[in-house]
């Protein structure tokens, strides 16, 4: 087992390297650079930079070096000092920026995830064990509607209804008076009020997916001969359900749980963007849009590492829940 883990970690190195190169190149692919994107953004709101300001900015950001030089510098910074470089856009070290937004990101993603799992799994199990019952139809229909509604459309409608009926816009995560206040009970309550909207939106589509997959794979399991055999042998329905089928049906989730790690870091990007939440997702999106390459590159890079680690965890877990999968790993 240890050897297996060791080998997997060794394998990760080229993957991570490849990802870092690809992401760096991808960020550079769109024509232009940070400067052109910032000028374009300014022009959009009727603000302009004159030639002098432009020339100064060009110098400031050291743009115009070849891509590989920029990459080498960036990598060297990470390896030698753990520094991911400076964000052009925010004029701050990348690590600080990410750290600032990490706690809220994790809170938000975890809350959504727990909500999703807490609601989705039981419903999925119920639906599978009570196939074609009225409640099954109800749950199925609701989850399908959740699945079918575009997040961004729902977000705007909910926000508007909030304004019309509650007289307040629930965009963002805090009311202005709490935004930079230290943590307190009142602030927590304020956040909880704001978190409802993203929870509903993120929850609807997430839960729906979960319910469908859980129902599907549990049904697969329940109809397998071993279940029939067990039932024939007089095993209680409860034990029958929980002992094997549920465990096996969770299998596909386990194979994706690793990716949750990365989504903890940058989860719910679209919802966060639409609702204006101060999480890592929108930070990355704006960095990509503004071609703020060190920030975008670093977030990408960290995310990829987390994905790779997550995949490893997934594979290990998969081996654990399903002993049939050999973790010696080699071919036949």
């Amino acid at each position, binding site marked *: 087992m240890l050897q297996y883990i060791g080998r997997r970690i060794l394998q990760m190195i080229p993957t991570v390297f490849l990802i870092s190169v690809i992401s760096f190149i991808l960020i550079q692919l*769109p*024509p*232009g650079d940070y400067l*052109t*994107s*910032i*000028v*374009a*953004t*300014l*022009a*959009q*709101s*009727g*603000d*302009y930079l*004159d*030639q*002098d*300001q432009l*020339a*100064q900015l060009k*110098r*400031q950001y*050291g743009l115009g070096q070849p891509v590989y030089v920029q990459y080498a510098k960036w990598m060297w910074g990470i390896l030698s000092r753990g*520094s991911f*470089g400076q*964000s052009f*856009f*925010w*004029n*701050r070290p990348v690590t*600080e*920026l990410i750290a*600032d937004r990490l706690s809220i990101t994790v809170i938000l993603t975890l809350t959504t995830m727990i909500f999703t799992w807490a609601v989705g799994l039981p419903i999925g199990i119920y639906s599978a064990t009570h196939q074609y019952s009225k409640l099954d139809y109800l749950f199925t229909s609701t989850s399908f509607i959740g699945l079918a509604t575009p997040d961004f459309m729902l977000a*705007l409608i909910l*926000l*508007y209804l*909030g*304004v019309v009926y509650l*007289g*307040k*816009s629930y*965009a*963002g995560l805090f009311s*202005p008076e709490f*935004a*930079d206040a230290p943590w307190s009970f009142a602030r927590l309550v304020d956040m909880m009020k704001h978190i409802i909207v993203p929870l509903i939106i993120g929850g609807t589509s997430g839960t729906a997916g979960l319910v469908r997959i859980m129902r599907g794979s549990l049904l697969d399991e329940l109809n397998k001969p071993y279940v029939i055999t067990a039932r024939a042998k007089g095993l209680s329905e409860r034990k029958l359900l929980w002992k094997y089928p549920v465990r096996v049906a969770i299998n596909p989730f386990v194979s994706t749980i690793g990716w949750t790690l990365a989504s903890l870091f940058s989860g719910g990007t679209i919802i*966060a*963007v*639409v*609702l*204006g*939440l*101060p999480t890592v997702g*929108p930070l990355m999106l*704006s960095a990509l*849009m*503004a*071609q703020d390459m060190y920030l975008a590159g670093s977030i990408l890079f960290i995310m990829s590492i987390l994905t790779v680690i997550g995949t490893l965890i997934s594979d290990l877990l998969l081996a654990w829940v399903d002993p049939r999968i050999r973790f010696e790993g080699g071919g036949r």
Partner: protein
Amino acid sequence: MSAEISRRSFLKLTAMTAVGIMAASCAQPEAQPTSAPAQQPTAAPAKPTDTPAPVIKYKEAPMLAELVKAGKLPPVEERLPIEPAVCPVAKEIGKYGGTLHRPFTGASDTAGMDRLISESLIQFSADGSAFEPNVFSKWEIADEGKTFTFYLRQGIKWSDGEAITTEDAAFVYEDLLLNTEYAATPPAWLRPGGQVGTMEVVDDFTFRMKFAKAYPLLLIKFSQPSYFRHAKHYFTQFHPKYTDKATLDAKIKEAAVERWDQLLNGKAAQFDNPAMPVFNTWVTKSRVADTVHNLERNPYYFKVDPEGNQLPYIDVIQHELVTGGTEIIMTKNIAGAYEFNDRYLGDRAVLMENQEKGGYKMYIWTSTTGVSHQVMFNMSFRADPVKAKYIQDQKFKQAFSYAMNRPDYSTVMFAGMAKPRQATVIDQSADFVAEYAQRHIEYNPDKANQMLDELGLDKKDAEGYRIAPETGKALELILYLSQGYGVAGGMVAEYAKQVGLKVLPKEEERSIHYNRMTANELELSMWGMDGAIYPVWLDYAYWIVPWVQGSSRIGPAYGLYRDSAGKDGIAPEGVVAKALEIYDQACAETDDAKRIVLCKQVLDIASDNCWTCGLVQSTDALVLVKNNVGNVPDKGITDYVFRSPKNTHPEQYYFKN
């Protein structure tokens, strides 16, 4: 003190002296934006607020009074300049206190803060017709517009209490602008016509600048808040001339940059560095990356109201980071979450209808928009000679203009509330000629068809598109659109199709669009036309003539040629070259009347050639003001160079309760 006013209009630049009286007002927020500079005589009637207040005891905000009491701050008399600038109030004397909330969309949006709080050396009057003293209490122009003498307001202080003197100016000039490590070449504004201007310190509060040729546009430059903003006592710690290498290297390393100039520039980001001394109304207490950005009153601010209350009235300006786009901001607008918002406003009807519910009022200010939407022909386009030929052709563009169904366009895009107009300066501009605004704007497809036939485009393909005789295929022009112009572009393409012109709209992400512009790939494009007012357009509007590359969609390669002194780009040709020649004469002309004549000639050529083909105009600029905010003028003029809303003096906005 005389009652003579320093309110010199732009036309008086040639006068030997343009004396600014220290106690002169900083603005007339109530002034209507209709008076044209040309008609503005020097002897403007004295406004009541212009009379210097009798010696009075200055008052200050309670939050500062407490600090004074605690001995943490010198008394208000010592903090103010010897003669503070008196800012008239728009409606009434205000009260101290309160936090004003506004949205902002990220680091690229600090321009919004800048336009609210940044002071400039001199300022435009509220109607944009004249310059007024600000940080400079007066200035003199001599030597036919080549020599400028500037007088700093005596006793004015940085926000940390240090005096602002000519030493600060000299530091910027010698140690930054002329330092080749800081700026490889001195900035363009310092070298009109190629030769670097000189600077000479006369005394602590007076300095003189000399240029090789007349430089009347310098005053427009100095009305922008990006000149002489480095406090010497603070910035020397980041400068190799004043700080030893080891200390500096340590600082460079700590800031994770490579060179000292990067370090210094990073520290000079005024909204991101609370330690940087400024002379703005409010000073930064946060960093740009913070989700809530606070600006707090500057205790050393140099302006008082007519009763001697030190401004600003409002304690804190708070910007909340909103990353979700304008629609999210809209939900907050109508919920009444912002006390003042002039930048991110959406659907007009929704805003108007929620006024009562949200507890705010929508003010309708006037923008300097010559036309709200226009089609721009890239005169320097060369990639396809056939397309280029027609884009260059005056008759082709005129025919195109006749094909545009402007009343229909207004109906769809502006609920019929915008009026058809050719691209030219706004009615209030000193060089406005009514005829130019009406040129080639009637919807006349027959005339357009006839003109196109005469150009040799008289054959059509199976789909009804006109065939270019040179290629035997349909003449196909691409209309490049920045995000948000998709619908507009679709309509233009439809009108063009009705006279057999194949115009393909292509909407692109805006930095991609911008890159196409700098790469000279644009054929046709669309944009708005702000800053269309004299004299601002001479130094700003890229849509009348391609005087620099900037955002010059009508000839980016021509602009580049001028920027690079002929090294890059394409030399302007034909009628554009002629317009640019007159434009250059106008920029160097110090006599206002003569200059206006030249400007009119440029506008004549531009509007007749339709390289900027105007569609319709609506100058309404919406501003959201919460009911409890006082002293926001009912009428204001919205423009980048005029620094709106700064030109309505947010320092005298206040909270009624």
